[in-house]
């Protein structure tokens, strides 16, 4: 038997002879340092070129849709935090708005503006993370650190409002958990100043950078037609030259009352996606600034006589029937209920007793409030939308985030379907990487900004 070459030992008989080569199969992932997310790509390689790729997902499946069917409507809100865990607020509001559509109620003006503000802050966080991580994978570690620094300023804002950084659970069906804290506008402007500075620095580091452009321009491109055929929305669609944005096409909340532009690209490649995301962050900041200026309700004045009481004494007075003037006395709420005092409760929540829990002052101090509270909490009595179904779409950071909810008239959703924005791009990932080099898989995959939580649900 003829001596086997090293090549034959590794690649099997026949390689290196005849036509010269055979294809090599490489498994990328599920856990791989170049993959910021758990997915599995089985790539068939010819040399360094990807000939065929099979993308496998599902490693982060947690039965989101099944779990939502088990509890009352508001119980699904913590699960929606974990869909897109980089911009959880948008998921929260999207789900709550879909239930509100089923109920046929309209939230208060102030609540709409708060939702706009918080959604846009989340969108900036999401884009910062996406660009930072993609740049890091191409070797630009500085950019990642700068971006995370800016994200930290924004997450502090989120923490101020919601009390948490990631698992925020801030939306409620019919409103939000709490009003914006004092001095929020000022803090936001400070954070935006820092963010703008970071974006300027990053722009100088990346936009026009020779190495960065060599890796990004013309890589991972999808044509306009193919992008639409794959139902890809968000920055990837806009990078291909289609100015579709749910915020503009079918405005919800207060998006029809703020001015913003929809940045678009031309080539649909990774570089255009990067440029679109950079431009969108500036637009988001514009939206937040306008929304904060226009925030209805103005400053929140708490103007009551008498000192705040602790809840226990409050309940005691209520039980003893000493209710005269009781409801005018403010109550010291635990820190996780701050921003939901009686004077602001109606500003951020819809005035519908079938949907929103009453302010704690009424629950503790009056029998009507207590009954209202229990009617919403008791099993089988909570929010009960009439039988029917509704689809509601918001513009998530990665594209159209849709919720499709079917109600059977009980207090639990019969079916909750989430249309994750990064699902269609992942279905098209093989089209972006086939025919390109192995090293190009990394920026193309990064440009999708895959979020396992919403992809696998």
């Amino acid at each position: 038997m003829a001596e086997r070459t090293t090549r034959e030992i590794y690649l099997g008989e026949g390689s290196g002879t005849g036509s010269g080569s055979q294809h090599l199969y490489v498994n990328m992932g599920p856990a791989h340092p170049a993959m910021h997310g758990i997915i599995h790509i089985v790539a068939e390689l010819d040399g360094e070129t990807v000939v065929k790729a099979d993308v496998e997902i599902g490693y982060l499946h947690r039965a989101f849709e099944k779990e939502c069917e088990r509890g009352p409507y508001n119980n699904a809100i913590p699960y929606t935090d974990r869909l897109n865990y980089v911009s959880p607020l948008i998921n929260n509001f999207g789900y709550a708005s879909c239930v509100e559509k089923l109920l046929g109620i309209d939230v208060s003006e102030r609540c709409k503006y708060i939702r706009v503000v918080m959604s846009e802050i989340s969108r900036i966080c999401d884009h910062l993370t996406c660009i930072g991580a993609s740049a890091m994978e191409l070797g630009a570690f500085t950019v990642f650190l700068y971006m995370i620094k800016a994200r930290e300023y924004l997450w502090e804002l989120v923490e101020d409002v919601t009390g948490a950084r990631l698992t925020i659970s801030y939306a409620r069906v019919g409103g939000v958990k709490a009003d914006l804290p004092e001095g929020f506008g000022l803090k936001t402007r400070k954070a935006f100043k820092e963010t703008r500075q970071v974006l300027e620095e990053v722009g100088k580091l990346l936009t026009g950078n020779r190495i960065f452009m060599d890796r990004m321009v013309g890589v991972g491109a999808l044509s306009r037609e193919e992008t639409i055929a794959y139902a890809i929305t968000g920055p990837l669609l806009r990078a291909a030259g289609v100015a579709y944005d749910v915020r503009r096409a079918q405005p919800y909340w207060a998006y029809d009352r703020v001015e913003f532009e929809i940045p678009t690209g031309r080539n649909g490649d990774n570089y255009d996606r990067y440029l679109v995301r950079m431009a969108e962050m500036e637009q988001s900041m514009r939206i937040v600034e306008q929304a904060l200026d226009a925030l209805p309700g103005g400053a929140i004045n708490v103007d009551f006589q008498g000192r705040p009481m602790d809840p226990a004494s409050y309940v005691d007075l209520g039980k003893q029937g000493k209710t005269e003037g009781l409801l005018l006395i403010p109550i010291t709420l635990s820190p996780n209920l701050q921003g939901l005092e009686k004077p602001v409760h109606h500003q951020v929540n819809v005035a519908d007793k079938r949907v929103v829990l009453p302010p704690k002052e009424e629950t503790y101090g009056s029998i009507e409030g207590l009954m209202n509270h229990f009617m919403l909490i008791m099993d089988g009595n909570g929010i009960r939308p009439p039988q029917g179904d509704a689809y509601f779409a918001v513009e998530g950071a990665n594209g159209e985030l849709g919720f499709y909810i079917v109600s059977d008239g009980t207090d639990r959703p019969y079916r909750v379907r989430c249309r994750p924005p990064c699902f269609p791009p992942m279905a098209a990932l093989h089209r972006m990487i086939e025919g390109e080099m192995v090293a190009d898989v990394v920026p193309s995959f990064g440009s999708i900004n895959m979020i396992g939580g919403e992809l696998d649900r």
Partner: protein
Amino acid sequence: MDGQSALLRLTTTFGGRIIETHAYRGDHTAVVERSALLDVLRFCRDEADLGFDFLMDLTSVDYLKYPGREFGPRFEVVYHLYSLAHNHRLRLKVRVEEDDARVPSAVPLWPVANWFEREVWDMFGIRFDGHPDLRRLLMYEEFQGHPLRKDYPVNKRQPLIGPKN
């Protein structure tokens, strides 16, 4: 064109093959006969005044325990369409029986249907005729049952699986 006239357009073209149409909370829905599904989808995509170029979402609902529908067709496959040019949406539904849970595949019309349909097969066990590669998408190959069916217990255990080879 608004949703109502889109529905009208469908009913005048397809007549009895559109089982029913309705609008609820601003969403317009047409329930389509299974045999007409591909024709209706193609019509929606290609007619200039409908122009539904996006298959935004494809999912399914199991109506096994829905009050009043326990005996009717068990599943509904739901298509959400969106038109970029006209900025309108439409929902199409196809009802299928449990013992004949098959729907023609929409992959020839929209490539994104490939993964959507794989997910529906995975979660509900509905087969898509003509699908090029109907494998499970989110669960693993050895998974038994279809978890989003209403009769799949939420605490059901799955058999342990070993390495393939």
